[in-house]
């Protein structure tokens, strides 16, 4: 088995701040994903990466940057946090497009 670790678990930021979320997986999966989930709602794809150093934009990429410098890690940056923004950011990994394994999430609150 494997595990996905997301840091931090909780992130409180200020309006306009640049915030970075990190994701690590030890499944040795090639493909990694970042999703945003607003309270009780669906998953919206922000970025995904098919392999190391690859980046593909999802439907919600505006306002975010991503980085995949190693196979095991995938970072997401909120380039300018929006006031009163509140969401959970979920990282996932998979073997290509097969079953996704999700991390526990990072909960973001912007004051």
């Amino acid at each position, binding site marked *: 088995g494997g595990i996905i670790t997301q840091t931090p678990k909780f992130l409180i930021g200020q309006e306009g701040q640049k915030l970075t979320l990190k994701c690590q997986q030890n499944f040795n999966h090639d493909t990694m994903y970042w999703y945003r989930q607003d309270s009780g709602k669906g*998953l919206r*794809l922000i970025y995904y990466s098919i392999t190391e150093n690859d980046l593909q934009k999802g439907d919600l990429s505006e306002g975010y940057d991503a980085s995949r410098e190693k196979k095991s890690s995938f970072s997401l940056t909120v380039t300018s946090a929006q006031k009163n923004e509140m969401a959970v950011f979920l990282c996932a990994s998979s073997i290509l497009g097969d079953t996704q394994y999700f991390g*526990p999430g990072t909960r973001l609150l912007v004051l």
Partner: protein
Amino acid sequence: GDSVTQTEGLVTLTKGLPVMLNCTYQTTYSPFLFWYVQHLNEAPKLLLKSSTDNKRTEHQGFYATLHKSSSSFHLQKSSVQLSDSALYFCALSGGTGGYKVVFGSGTRLLVSP
């Protein structure tokens, strides 16, 4: 592009009754279809998946059959339990977006005693 439609936002049922959650999709390729379940304050996890036409797949009492002729992958269970209360997502991969996974909007299932 590809899309997944889940028509019910909320389904409320009494324990012991059967349930069917609808999922239809659009793609010009031959995709993988998935059902993920997300319990409160937890991460989504796979419930079941299929890429084989007309073959029933089952897990933990839930079952679904991929019907490519109608582009459907409905989730069913014959008798729901209180612990089945959760958010259920239908998802597709291997379509025109390649390894990009497309999720439906989700159906919340609430089971009462």
